[in-house]
């Protein structure tokens, strides 16, 4: 009896997953991407305020493009082949200028996994060398992770590919009638972050250095450096910021919120190790109420504790080993 009931419930789950991936197929695996023109010639594809799942196919990230008189610059490539193809189709429906360059802001899969498709249309794909290394190191494992999180249907045909060009230093790109500043701001969110500023409209594409109304992800982060980068960006001459996740930023409050949350994480993890908590204690601890408005908070908080706590705990054990 027990066995039958369990296998039925497993079957129901499988059937639901299958139905969801079949309905994705029936829709031709489309995300329904719509380009939102947030400033003259600057467009954004807004992602959902959710974690990856079988319904959204990883459409949780903001990507975009800038249209100059000569050419187009794309910023980030989405989580899958299908996403990137759709992005390219929409861009082509808006302009026939070539997508000469594509900047991938960092190696996280929601930003980088569509880059193969941009290479395919002869766009030059640019990434920080550390981001390239991260993509080649973690890419295969992350594809497996995403297949589990959102179903194999969405991931079909998505392959890890290398960028064409490394961004080590700031550079300016003339798009015709407007200039994009491409600037490494690394070692904060990940070892290889890059931001893009459209100087004509003051639109800053901040990648995942800015999470707006959403809990930032820190497994590859160095929080003190990230806080420095927040100051750097805050002082830049921007009119609006497109965050990696969350809605458009038009005022400075996001900087305070992010700094508050990141400092809290760091401090809590340090205190937690110092008072001898276990990781299970830290991961199941409550988050202060002032952060409860952030989307995907619970899962990101646990993820953050896993990486931050273990890092600090390891240093603490190493120090103890010297004494014991």
């Amino acid at each position, binding site marked *: 009896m027990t*066995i039958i009931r*369990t296998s039925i419930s497993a079957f129901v789950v499988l059937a639901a997953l299958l139905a969801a991936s079949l309905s994705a197929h029936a829709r031709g695996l489309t995300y329904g991407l719509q380009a939102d023109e947030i400033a003259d010639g600057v467009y954004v594809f807004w992602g959902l305020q959710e974690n990856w799942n079988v319904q959204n196919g990883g459409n949780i990230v903001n990507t975009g493009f800038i249209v100059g008189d000569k050419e187009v610059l794309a910023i980030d490539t989405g989580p899958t082949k299908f996403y990137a193809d759709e992005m390219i189709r929409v861009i082509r429906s808006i302009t026939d200028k070539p997508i000469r360059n594509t900047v991938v802001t960092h190696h996280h899969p929601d930003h980088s996994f569509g880059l193969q498709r941009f290479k395919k249309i002869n766009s030059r794909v640019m990434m920080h060398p550390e981001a390239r290394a991260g993509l080649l190191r973690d890419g295969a494992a992350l594809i497996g*992770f995403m297949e*589990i999180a959102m179903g194999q249907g969405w991931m079909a045909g998505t392959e890890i590919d290398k960028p064409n060009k490394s961004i080590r230093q700031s550079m300016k790109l003339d798009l015709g009638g407007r200039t994009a500043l491409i600037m490494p701001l690394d070692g904060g969110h990940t070892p290889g972050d890059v931001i893009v500023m459209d100087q004509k409209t003051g639109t800053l594409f901040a990648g995942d250095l800015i999470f707006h109304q959403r809990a930032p992800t820190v497994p590859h982060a160095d929080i003190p450096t990230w806080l420095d980068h927040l100051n750097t960006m805050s002082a830049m001459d921007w009119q609006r910021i497109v965050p990696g996740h969350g809605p458009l930023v038009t005022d400075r409050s996001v900087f305070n919120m992010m700094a508050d949350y990141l400092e809290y994480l760091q401090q809590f993890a340090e205190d937690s190790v110092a008072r*001898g908590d276990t990781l299970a204690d830290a*991961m*199941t601890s409550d988050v202060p109420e002032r952060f409860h408005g952030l989307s995907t908070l619970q899962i990101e908080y646990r993820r953050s504790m896993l990486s931050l706590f273990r890092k600090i705990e390891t240093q603490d*054990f190493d120090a103890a080993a010297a004494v014991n």
Partner: protein
Amino acid sequence: MKSILGLFAAIGLVLGMTQMAAAGSIDPNDSPLWQTMHQDFLYGDEAVFDDLVTVVMPVDIENSTDVPVAIRLSPDLGEVEEVALIAENNPIPLVARMYPHRQINMFGIKIRLEMSTPVRAAARTADGVWHVGSEWANVLTPGGCSAPIEFSEAGAGARLGEISFRTYARDDGTDRLKMRIIHPMETGFAFTPEGDEIPAYFVERIELADENGPIADLVTNAAVAPDPIFTIDTAGLNQSLQINARDSEGLQFETFR
């Protein structure tokens, strides 16, 4: 009227079932493997699911080679002779056993999970009854037992077997001992990039003692995560501590203070 009675009956049934799940012999996780686990690892002895033993762990697991588990043992258990930690769907289901020599309120460990599974902590009291607490672990990144351990510092020759520990006075009046031992804890299921099988190699026994005598003995399997960390809460931990460990190759490690 009839339908209202029916509703009451249905509520009664639901309440009854909930109560049985809270303390009884019915597996709250309804797992087909439980009977086998019960026979193999709890010797088929009487076992009750109650809340004297609780498993504290994150429910969604993203790093299946480092899953933190804390087992809380209620003082109401009285004398506990043995604690077993079982991850049912693991290729190595029995993760560890602990034999306390004094009252222990919490036992923390980090483990590997191959796939989503019920995680059971069972404490055998002096009357021979196992008290079982369960948690369902939803593993988002399977393969914790078959993944090669690239991110461990373990096996870095010179540090193999290095034991470090700290003690803490906790808010609840107990003392906490937290220890780490550098060890690869190879399961035997992982392969090198060249495709060669990496043989099983793990810490299999740890003895903890202070000046007042033994605190607890641990018997560990390779389902314990690399560079294991163990945490024990007990009252009146003496400042002088002695930790001895032995691995499956017969190497012995020790540290003391």
